[in-house]
């Protein structure tokens, strides 16, 4: 690790001020940041500990739920309100990482976790995300945990989160705060960027800006499922995952929100998939169509080609389950 200063402020404004510099980073759980710092993939010269800012509460409000940024993945998954009203979120969290990691990893950090692309992790190889302009070793390298949706010629890195996938299906938004104390809310659909030519820029966070909370509106559907496919029974990243939030009315799909992990450069949601389903009667033909729409712009490589049929099959299975 590169040497760094560490501050542990107790005020939000101080934390944002401390972290305003070019090479400063917030740290809460640290499960991803310290991992990357040890490999010098991340090299901040300053860390601001945000664990003392009181951002670790979960509150119910008129719109839904406000989840503090430093609420741990464990606490969030176990929260009875979440288990009752937003079960897809609990399920997604419980499908991710390990018990130990969930006890440390936080809500804000999970949203910002970096890709698991092995070339991003390897400072001896080219990676446009880690070293802009250096190239992408993954394009002609070994692919498996890479994206097929939202990719570019510069980057096929996958967003690895489970939690964020459920949050996208739940129409979550993030609450941000900057050094001036300015606060804003951004829907997750507008929070992440596609890699394009600048894969190093993953979100629309501004310098010094901190995620202070995630807002979950009341769930649009009572039928919620999270299904994850992985290479072993537990403790592995998703090959494909699907979060589904549905409401049925009179035998038809009244509300559909599908989000996907293991496929996209960001936690993936495709409004056209949802639109296709809404108002329709569940059928195999409809589910097949949803799969076709989802994959219409997929860009596959040798190592990721399997994700198209796998993604479609899992989507179909989830839709069958959730509409049954």
């Amino acid at each position, binding site marked *: 690790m590169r040497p*760094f200063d*560490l501050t542990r402020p107790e005020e939000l404004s101080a934390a944002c001020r401390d972290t305003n510099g070019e090479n400063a980073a917030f740290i809460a759980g640290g*499960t991803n940041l*310290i991992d990357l710092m040890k490999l010098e993939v991340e090299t901040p010269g300053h860390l601001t500990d945000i664990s003392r800012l009181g951002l670790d509460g979960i509150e119910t409000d008129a719109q839904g739920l406000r989840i503090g940024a430093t609420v741990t993945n464990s606490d969030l998954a176990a929260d*009875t309100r979440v288990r009752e009203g937003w079960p897809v979120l609990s399920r997604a969290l*419980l499908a991710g990482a390990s*018990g*130990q*990691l969930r006890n440390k990893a936080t809500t804000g950090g999970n949203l910002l976790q970096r890709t698991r692309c092995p070339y991003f992790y390897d400072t001896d190889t080219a990676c446009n995300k880690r070293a802009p302009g250096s190239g992408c070793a993954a394009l002609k390298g070994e692919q498996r945990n890479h994206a097929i949706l939202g990719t570019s010629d510069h980057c096929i890195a996958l967003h690895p989160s489970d939690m964020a996938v459920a949050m996208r299906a739940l129409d979550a938004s993030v609450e941000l705060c900057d050094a001036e104390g300015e606060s804003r809310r951004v829907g997750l659909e507008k929070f992440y960027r596609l890699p394009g030519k600048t894969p190093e820029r993953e979100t629309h966070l501004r310098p010094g800006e901190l995620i202070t909370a995630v807002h979950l509106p009341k769930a649009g559907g009572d039928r919620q499922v999270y299904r994850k496919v992985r290479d072993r029974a*537990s403790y592995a990243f998703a090959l494909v995952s699907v979060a589904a939030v549905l409401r049925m009315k009179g035998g038809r799909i009244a509300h559909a929100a599908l989000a996907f992990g293991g496929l996209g450069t960001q936690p993936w949601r495709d409004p056209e998939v949802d639109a296709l389903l809404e108002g329709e009667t569940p059928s195999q033909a409809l589910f097949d169509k949803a799969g076709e729409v989802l994959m219409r712009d997929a860009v596959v490589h040798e190592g990721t080609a399997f994700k198209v049929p796998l993604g479609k099959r899992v989507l179909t299975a989830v839709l069958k389950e959730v509409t049954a």
Partner: protein
Amino acid sequence: MKVTLNVNGASHWLDLDTRVTLLDALRDHLKLTGTKKGCDHGQCGACTVIAGGRRINSCLSLAALHDGDEITTVEGLSDDELSDLQSAFVAHDGMQCGYCTPGQICSALGMLGELSEGWPSHVSETLDGPVRPTREEIAERMSGNLCRCSCYPGINAAILETAEGS
């Protein structure tokens, strides 16, 4: 950076490089080498300790971020006599090389606490029902602790026996 760590009931005042992980503080600075370093990246669980009542990977945590925290390591689980859980690990041969064992035991302790708080897991039928320490629940919840000797059957038997006994 000045850091106070309360480990197994004793307070330690350390002056550490900010980069020192909780794991290295325990092993190299406090000579509590019972906590093991298997991967140093949160991928194997050998470094599991209980911090603030929760099991965590001490390798992915900076010592400075635990200033003032209560830490329990494997050394803190027994004095002259082994704890029930430790004895069960011996009786069920829940170890071979022994390197992952302290992490397995600390993880099991933390996990049993989570079970008793009613936390569901990935394999729980429902999110609202009671959770019991079944073999399947234990296996899922202990999957953050790799064992290359593959003592999972003995580990699970030891944990089941301890859970049923308490």
